[in-house]
């Protein structure tokens, strides 16, 4: 590789990039942008995490101690919004930026300038969102799903939230367009679709889902905005609108959205498990097919979030059956990962630990999802801590654990240095322990009837809540360990070889030096 710069090809952005802060503001390099996405999402993870600590501190004991109910509601609302739109989604886009071009042998993303733009929209949106705490009336407080009538009534905070969702949506759409085009048009010669690493496949499908449903979200928040300020009555009962319609449109976006947050993590895990089992992925093609069909079918199950909103029995049964059937392709993936490990020569470095933790806990989350999909049960558990437990098992021990796995897996390639394996293992085991301590007991709380989004609770829930809060504090602190490990690795980790994982087979390991050079694959590799 041309590590020493010099071969003069007439490139718009050559190696004379500005330095200092201007480098980051003007950069169009996919690696720089990926790095910014990752740091941004980690910062938002800490902000959202701080809100979560506030929530758990209030719920540590019955009664109102720390947060007034109004502020508590703002905390739960912004915790959800920030984690979904600020932490998990941008983190996956960061991985896509770093990895997709390297894995398919492309020099950069298809639209480098648009890439820069879609990143820099994020801090703007985040400022609006976090800043809304400080406007009169405070931040939005109607839950991350912002159902009317609460969201048509709130103050300036709700408007700021609406704008910020608009901006975040625009950013995601631009990001996905970029990713789709890169994957479809910029593959190296010989890199056929069916040779693409699974991470690339899952992102391709995720990006399609994003352009499919993000505009619908943009539409529904626009309707909210015009209802609030321009006299339309989409959701206002008095004007002939219907607040339940909001829920239908929102969840038409919302259920595909949860798959948007999980499919790329399926991709990461499908890279990590074969590497550390030293075997090719079992049933690669089934995985591709299953991912594609999950994406299609996820658009016909949305009303399982609305079983108690009022629905004819026919509707309830339809969405119940459809939801349970869609768990089938998801289950097949779990079998594929397990079969990949079967008789492999496995080793358990931190990325592998997080991936195995992912499989284990994601299955629990999947099962509690199927339980929520059973109408007579869901009528009991809807809006209780059971649902909270379900989606934290799929989002925290699903998406987030996969993100950790990916970060540990690729950080040597990104920085040229190894992380501290011992500390990495500590990070895994502490996360595993505290995660379950926090969320497993919430199943019991939910089954016993503790409602979500309420700052106070009955005495009978006190013990489990205290356990859960203690677990949450532990989990929060553990993530600071992750920050330390990453900084330590970047600053003073041991030098990493080109291919520190001997089972790795994708292009970034086999064809690029470590650390990956600033410009990689300017001459496309030939893939056999």
């Amino acid at each position, binding site marked *: 590789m041309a590590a020493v710069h010099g071969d003069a090809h007439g490139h718009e952005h050559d190696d004379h990039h500005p330095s200092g802060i201007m480098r980051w503001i003007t950069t169009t390099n996919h690696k720089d942008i990926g790095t910014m996405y990752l740091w941004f999402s980690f910062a938002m993870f800490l902000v959202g995490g701080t809100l979560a600590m506030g929530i758990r501190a209030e719920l540590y004991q019955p009664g109102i101690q720390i947060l007034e109910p109004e502020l508590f509601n703002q905390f739960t609302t912004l915790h959800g919004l920030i984690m979904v739109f600020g932490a998990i989604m941008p983190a996956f886009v960061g991985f896509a930026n770093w990895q997709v071009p390297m894995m398919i042998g492309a020099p950069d993303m298809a639209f480098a300038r648009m890439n820069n733009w879609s990143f820099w929209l994020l801090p703007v949106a985040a400022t609006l969102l976090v800043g809304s705490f400080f406007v009169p009336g405070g931040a939005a407080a109607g839950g991350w799903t912002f159902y009317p009538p609460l969201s048509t009534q709130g103050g300036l905070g709700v408007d700021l939230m609406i704008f910020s969702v608009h901006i975040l949506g625009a950013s995601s759409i631009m990001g996905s367009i970029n990713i789709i085009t890169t994957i479809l048009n910029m593959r190296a010669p010989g890199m*056929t679709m069916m040779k693409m690493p699974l991470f690339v496949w899952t992102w391709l499908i995720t990006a399609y889902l994003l352009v499919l449903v993000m505009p619908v979200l943009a539409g529904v928040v626009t309707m909210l905005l015009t209802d609030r300020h321009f006299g339309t009555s989409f959701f206002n009962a008095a004007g002939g609108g219907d607040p339940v319609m909001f829920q239908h449109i929102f969840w038409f976006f919302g259920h595909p959205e949860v798959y948007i947050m999980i499919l790329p993590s399926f991709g990461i895990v499908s890279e990590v498990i074969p590497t550390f089992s030293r075997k090719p992925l079992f049933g690669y*093609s089934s995985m591709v*097919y299953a991912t594609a069909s999950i994406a299609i079918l996820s658009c*016909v199950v949305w009303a399982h979030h609305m079983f108690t909103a009022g629905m004819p029995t026919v509707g309830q049964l339809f969405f119940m059956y459809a939801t349970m059937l869609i768990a*089938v392709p998801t*289950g097949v993936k779990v079998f594929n990962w397990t079969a990949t490990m079967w008789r492999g020569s496995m080793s358990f470095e931190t990325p592998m630990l997080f991936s195995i933790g992912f499989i284990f806990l994601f299955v629990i989350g999947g099962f509690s999802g199927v339980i929520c999909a059973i109408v007579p049960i869901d009528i009991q558990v809807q809006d209780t801590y059971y649902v909270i437990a379900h989606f934290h098992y799929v989002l925290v021990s699903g998406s987030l654990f996969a993100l950790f796995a990916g970060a540990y897996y690729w950080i040597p390639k990104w920085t040229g240095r190894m992380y501290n394996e011992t500390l990495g293992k500590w990070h895994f085991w502490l996360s595993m322990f505290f995660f379950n301590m926090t969320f497993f007991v919430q199943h019991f709380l939910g089954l016993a009837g503790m409602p979500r989004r309420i700052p106070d609770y009955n005495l009978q829930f006190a013990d489990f809540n205290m356990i859960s809060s203690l677990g949450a504090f532990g989990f929060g602190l553990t993530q600071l360990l992750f920050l330390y490990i990453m900084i330590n690795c970047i600053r003073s980790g041991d030098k990493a070889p080109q291919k520190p994982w001997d089972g790795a087979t994708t292009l970034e390991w086999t064809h690029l030096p470590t650390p990956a050079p600033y410009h990689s694959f300017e001459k496309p590799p030939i893939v056999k």
Partner: protein
Amino acid sequence: MSNSPADKNHVSVWQIAKAVLSAFMGIRKKSDLEHDAATLKPAHVIIGGIIGGLLFVIGVFSVVKLVIN
């Protein structure tokens, strides 16, 4: 994708249906898949997938109707 017109003619509705159905279950033999990849065009699969999705909806709906009566 491929430009040899000879083997494209062999795409039958049945082959697309099989590809889509196995996708919904998430199980596909490698050899079948390679055959698909060589012969099916993206448009085939997308249209097949949408029709498959519709059939899925109709199927589930019929089962619901059956259960309710």
